[in-house]
């Protein structure tokens, strides 16, 4: 397989916004050589999301994940400080931490018993004295390899295998979206016990797009929406009541601005809708407390639907419930999704129950909405094998109405996105995806130039 040169990679995105044109070549979704470059330069070449600090409540706790193809462990040391390391013994490369989350003061490699403490320090080499090691070996750094960059932004943990900008710079104005999540609990956020992992037969960027895609909602989810409406009508006991039954921001009958999108630097985006406060909202019983603490307008933003993508691998979808997703590309046509119900610590058991029930119904691969998305991604992946018309036409809605900078809704948060698209229910902006592909190309360019 011939490696691609930068000019070929760059040509996969036809970004001619002044001509009213933006498109992505289908090969960006299907080619193994593109995927290999993405792993090296997008995922292993800049900030990616690792997990939540709340997964490691105590000293010596750890969580394992991957950064691109590289196994990574985040550990809390004996002093309580977090660190991120390559999860591989420096001797022969065997994995050191074996569970998704766990705990241990000392991690003894199962293969040859080199041991490492929870700060990644190599504290023992088995039979060091009798090993007849050279001075060169003894002088070599045998500690677990630290990630080049690691940061904890309000409990959201990020890491990078290469030296890069400060996390505040990476998140930029999109940090306001993480703040809206983190501020919902006085003591921050936690993951509800129970991780759900699923795969789909499609490229990882299909998930990136779908989260921010209002256009598919009424097309892909009519079975879910009709059931929500039926349950609202029938008012049976033990039926899941969804926020989607209490508002019609997605429907054709609404008028005026019902939501919109924001696109940020570095490839982060959000697609949002106004959701009125009602009993179906898990935050309802703390609505007044949140208004007192953060002001009514900011509280209302917490209630609004927000589908946030922090490029390249993290999404928080807050609508009928609240989901944290970690996207892990496996192959050009295979993606693994690690998903969690994320919730403010200390909410009432009734609010938590509401959140969980809506989550299961909507978000789970065993539920009634997500499978209709993921099966559609596989359909797209199949259809992308189309050499006759290789350009995707899904980046054009909103082209003539998108505005630079903030809108009135962003002003409430003192947030200055790159672009805003306040709109009615039927506009369904697609220009926010442009930011994904600009960030994608930027990481690829930096990495390919570094390697050249």
């Amino acid at each position, binding site marked *: 397989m011939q490696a691609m040169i930068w000019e070929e990679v760059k040509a996969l995105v036809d970004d001619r916004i002044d001509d009213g044109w933006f498109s992505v070549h289908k090969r960006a979704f299907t080619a193994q050589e593109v995927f290999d470059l993405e792993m090296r330069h997008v995922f292993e070449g800049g900030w990616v999301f690792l997990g939540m600090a709340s997964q490691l409540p105590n000293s010596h706790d750890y969580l394992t994940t991957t950064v691109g193809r590289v196994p990574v462990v985040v550990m809390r040391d004996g002093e309580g400080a977090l660190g991120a390391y390559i999860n591989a013994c420096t001797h022969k490369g065997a994995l050191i931490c074996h*569970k*998704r*989350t766990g705990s241990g003061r000392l991690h003894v490699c199962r293969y040859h018993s080199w041991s490492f403490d929870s700060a990644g320090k190599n504290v023992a080499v088995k039979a060091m004295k009798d090993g007849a090691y050279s001075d060169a070996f003894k002088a070599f750094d045998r500690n677990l390899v630290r990630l080049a960059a690691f940061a904890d932004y309000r409990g959201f943990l990020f890491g990078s295998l290469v030296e890069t900008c400060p996390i505040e710079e990476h998140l930029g104005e999109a940090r306001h979206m993480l703040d809206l999540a983190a501020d919902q609990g006085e003591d921050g956020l936690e993951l*509800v*016990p*129970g*991780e*759900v*992992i*699923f*795969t*789909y*037969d499609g490229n990882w960027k299909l998930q990136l797009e779908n989260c921010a895609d209002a256009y598919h909602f009424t097309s*892909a989810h*009519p*079975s*879910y929406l*009709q*059931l929500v409406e*039926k*349950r609202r009508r029938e008012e*049976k*006991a*033990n*039926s*899941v009541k969804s926020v989607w039954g209490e508002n019609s921001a997605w429907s054709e009958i609404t008028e005026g601005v019902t939501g919109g999108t924001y696109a940020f630097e570095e490839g982060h985006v959000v697609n949002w809708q106004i959701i009125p406060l009602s009993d179906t909202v898990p935050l309802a019983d703390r609505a007044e407390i949140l208004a007192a603490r953060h002001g009514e307008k900011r509280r209302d933003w917490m209630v609004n639907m927000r589908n946030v993508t922090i490029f390249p691998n993290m999404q928080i979808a807050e609508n009928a419930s609240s989901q944290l997703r970690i996207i892990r590309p496996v192959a050009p046509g295979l993606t693994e999704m690690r998903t969690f*119900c994320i919730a403010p610590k200390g909410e009432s*058991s009734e609010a*938590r*129950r509401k959140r*969980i*029930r809506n*989550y*299961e119904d909507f978000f*789970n*691969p*065993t*539920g*009634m909405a997500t*499978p*209709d*998305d*993921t*099966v*559609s991604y*596989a*359909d797209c992946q199949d259809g992308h094998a189309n050499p006759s018309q290789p350009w995707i036409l899904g980046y054009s809605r909103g082209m003539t109405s998108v505005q630079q900078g903030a809108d009135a809704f962003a002003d409430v948060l003192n947030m200055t996105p790159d672009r805003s698209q306040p709109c009615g229910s039927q506009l369904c902006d697609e220009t926010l995806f442009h930011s994904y592909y600009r960030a994608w190309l930027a990481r690829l360019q930096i990495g390919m130039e570094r390697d050249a």
Partner: protein
Amino acid sequence: MITRAEAEDLIARESLALDRCDWDGWLALFTEDCCYWMPSWRDEETPTQDPQSELSLIWYQGRHNLEDRVWRVKSGLSVASVPLMRTSHHVSNILVEGEDRVVASFAVHVHNTKRRGDHVFFGRYEYRLVREGDALKIAEKKILLMNDYIPAVADFYML
């Protein structure tokens, strides 16, 4: 007291109803206020225990929720359900434990005609059965899915 023969008969009828897409026949095996529960997993070794404070893959109280799920796969409105996958339920190790509890091991073979692939979901069923008149019905069904690494879709009829 429930006999093993009765339990085996009920579970076989349930399996065949699902494999034959006899949805009404399947629903009729459950009590109106039945609990249908498939926990998720807290970690590698422990399934979630409390569906009110922990996440399940599916948790419903009331047969009407199962009726909703049946409606959805029949509606033609669900991308994931057209075409339906073909299934073959195989249930073994059926034992009555105590007065009304039945445990069993399951393997459900699923064929995805569209993607030309096969998958097997496996794990254990735990039932609580009750008598309604002459009929034995399912008051509780818990599905402990061992391979919770789900290829895009795992709907009720595949479990």
